[in-house]
């Protein structure tokens, strides 16, 4: 069965980030033989004076393919992990959603999209989780992170929000690769022009500093922008971080 596991608000100014905690849970799930986890995505939620957050209000989520018998173990492990690993002053939340048991995928997605635009209460999050049949739990502090955790699961399910945690490693920055070579990278599922232009398999791409992919249509997509007079005949370049800020 396929699950979404999302967490939010696990950190403070000095601790390791929520993304690292998500990666550690994903790695443990695999090491224990409970299943296989996909990439971790970061989802930006609303920044608003009425919302308590440490510094950026982002949630982290990954998808895992697991054996049904391990679901309770995984949920218990993640809860225990958050109870022990989360930083002082944080308000951690955990969401575990089994995709084929979701009462309404549309409602979960709508909640995630709302959390990017509106202030939402914890009660709303718990009410929706109950209706959908989704695990949602608080692990210290005010537990406010349950809102982001549920929203993170919804946004990951939507498939059109967020950046992937980590950077792609190719050769040196400044090198040039063909689109077909970029697609050989295990972290790249598609390559697209950010402005909608047509990208061909043999086009040359200038690789920038620490290129990252974004989540579009459920895939890890490397976005490119056109470059005029690129070195060595390159017609595309990977996006700078500034250009990825909106994802």
């Amino acid at each position, binding site marked *: 069965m396929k699950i979404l596991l999302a967490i939010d608000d696990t950190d403070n*100014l000095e601790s*390791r*980030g929520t*993304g*690292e905690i998500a990666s550690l849970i994903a790695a443990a799930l695999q090491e224990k033989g409970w299943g296989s986890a996909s990439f971790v995505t*970061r989802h930006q939620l609303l*920044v*608003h*004076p009425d919302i308590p*957050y*440490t*510094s*950026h*209000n*982002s949630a*982290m989520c990954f998808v895992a393919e697991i054996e049904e018998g391990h679901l309770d173990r995984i949920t218990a492990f993640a809860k225990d992990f958050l109870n022990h690993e989360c930083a002082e002053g944080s308000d951690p939340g955990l969401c575990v959603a089994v995709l084929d048991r979701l009462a309404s995928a549309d409602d979960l997605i709508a909640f995630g999209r709302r959390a990017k635009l509106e202030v939402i209460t914890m009660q709303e999050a718990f009410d929706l989780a109950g209706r959908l049949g989704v695990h949602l739990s608080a692990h210290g502090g005010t537990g406010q992170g349950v809102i982001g955790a549920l929203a993170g699961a919804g946004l990951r399910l939507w498939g059109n929000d967020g*950046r992937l*945690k*980590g*950077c792609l490693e190719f050769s040196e920055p400044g090198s040039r690769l063909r689109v077909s070579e970029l697609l050989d990278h295990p972290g790249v599922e598609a390559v697209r022009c950010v402005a909608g232009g047509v990208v061909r398999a043999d086009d040359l791409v200038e690789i*920038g*500093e*620490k290129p990252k992919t974004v989540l579009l249509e459920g895939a890890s997509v490397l976005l490119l922008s056109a470059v005029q007079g690129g070195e060595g005949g390159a017609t595309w370049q990977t996006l*700078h*971080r*500034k250009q990825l*800020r909106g994802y």
Partner: protein
Amino acid sequence: MWRNDQTGAREFTLGKESWGAAVCAALDCSGFAADVDEELVTDDERSCYNCRYRRWSASSFTCQATRP
């Protein structure tokens, strides 16, 4: 470049798109520390926009760094 907001926090007055000013401010700051990779927003590594002590607001950010 800075002012105190209603809560007394030190707010960057130039918003979220003043990339050069955010680099200059960070170069001048002894409290700068880079945030975790997934929260970096510019390739200029030393920038207030990349600092783990910046707290984003709707229009800009406030600085939570402790400076000597």
